[in-house]
């Protein structure tokens, strides 16, 4: 898909994104289980788990950030297509490369900033309120997820430039 099966390095890279998304899938099902357990403990057993919403929130973060590179690789992001014919083949190519360069740059800044924040959160011991769960691993996931997205954009550009991208 989108040229990722045409080159050995791209295949391997797609595999990495897939495996990371599998972790996201496990977290997704985990989210269902956590919510169900929370409701059962509170309603049926009368012993709510204090701070369970913190676990839910942190799991959701893991779901999103681990699946973002996989989703980006599969081009799920919605874009405007009304000017496609007007742009022409070359115009579309230029647009696609330009979009990825600039999006990639912003996500790169995000990845770098999230990494610094991860170290900062580790140093200062940032933690959730009720359960005192450490927050730094989440910034690490945020950083890795956006960094891999930058890599997806870079791979896309290489595939487009070498005409291996099936538009």
């Amino acid at each position: 898909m989108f040229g990722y099966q045409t080159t050995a390095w791209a295949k391997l890279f797609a595999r990495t994104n897939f495996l990371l998304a599998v972790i996201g899938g496990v977290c997704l099902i985990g989210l269902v289980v956590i919510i169900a357990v929370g409701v059962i403990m509170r309603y049926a057993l009368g012993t709510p788990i204090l701070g369970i919403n913190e676990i839910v929130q942190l799991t959701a973060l893991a779901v999103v950030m681990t699946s973002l590179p996989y989703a980006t690789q599969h081009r799920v992001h919605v874009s405007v297509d009304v000017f496609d014919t007007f742009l022409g083949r070359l115009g579309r190519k230029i647009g696609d490369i330009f979009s990825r360069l600039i999006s990639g740059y912003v996500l790169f800044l995000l990845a770098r900033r999230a990494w610094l924040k991860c170290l900062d959160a580790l140093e200062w011991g940032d933690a959730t309120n009720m359960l005192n769960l450490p927050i730094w691993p989440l910034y690490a996931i945020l950083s890795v997820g956006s960094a891999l997205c930058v890599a997806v954009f870079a791979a896309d550009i290489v595939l487009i430039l070498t005409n291996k991208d099936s538009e």
Partner: protein
Amino acid sequence: MTDTTVGLLGIAALFALMILRTPVAFAMLIVGFFGYGILEGMRSATALLLTESYSAVSNYSLIVVPMFILLGNISSVAGYSRGLYDAAFAWVGRFKGGLASASVIGCAAFSAVSGSSVATAVTLGKVALPEMKRVGYADSLATGSIAAGGTLGFLIPPSTGFVLYAILTEESIGRLFMAGILPGLLLMVLFMAVVWIIATLDETAGPCGEKVPFGERFKLLIAAAPLLFVIVASIGGIYLGVFSPVEASGIGAGLVLVLAVLQRKLTWASFKEAVMGTLQTSSMLYMIVIGANILNPFFSVTHIPQTLGDGLGNLNVGPYGTLAVILLAYVALGMFMDGLSMLVITIPIVFPVITGMGFDPIWFGVVAVIVIEMGMITPPVGLNVFVVRGVADGVPLTTVFKGVLPFLGAMLVALLLIIAFPQIALFIPNSMFG
């Protein structure tokens, strides 16, 4: 360069990026980031990028997004959605555009559970769109009815929009919720009328089915029982106080999953397909939320909404003239901004003006919510349209925008009716609370 100039350039850049096929989520992200950077320094902008990304992906209320998408995907691969729509088609399929109308009713019913337009559009879109496609509905009608139907999520209680309006203006949440009911139903009926008109004008848009015998219809209804059970259990659980609306999304997804496993409707391959699809759609939607969360603070620091609001306060065109100008400004802002952010910035300025002219504050809440709902489906930044496009396979964004256009007309009609007959909004709250 003044703040306003930077803001206008930002809007131009947004258009340029979208024309160059930059995904809308990233277009918002890029403009918001660089715009904030130009006005407040790159260090602040990078900080904004980080805090808003983190706060979006860890937002408790947004959990409904992956959960409802999972519910829809499992229903789909297990054949439950198909069962439900086969039954719906047997019951209403012989009417013109029957399935689209049924989906609008579905949106209204779902709105009674969900306070969010996006969640309503996502859930109904996941279930209804493939089914409408299957029986030959035009993409524009199918996606348009869902994107517009989703806006009922804000009007029919519970509603995040009314809660925010109440907090901003210190009006009663209960009264506002009650005031939303009749306008919500009115809008639902108007949407169905639009569907009927479209299906009448274009016979291929919403084709009629055969008349199905009565016995057969009940058989199909029983076949649709699993998904109906999940829906009733989720809604019932909320009203009985078993769980909150956010938890209901997780419980609903869990119930569908358990049912599908017990009924052996799920293979490993189809389960994997449902989960991976959920991950793709969810991260796409979260990216849009992140983009909007970074674009909105940029518009705030340009002071454009503020300037516009201040200008509105000093008009000299009579009460209805002022109202008309305010609503037009909301429509204009709604093209680019998220409706809730728009309310926060403008209500403190506009609300005293409106109430000072003798308009009812509860009534204005309803009017304001309808107008910000219009913003959810107007181009170029129309959150509901993006969401529906995201869950509809292979439909161009322009088709969805075209599809919602007639429904936008219906919202305008509803708005005019409510302005002409304020009782539509005020009848229930006034008879309940005096």
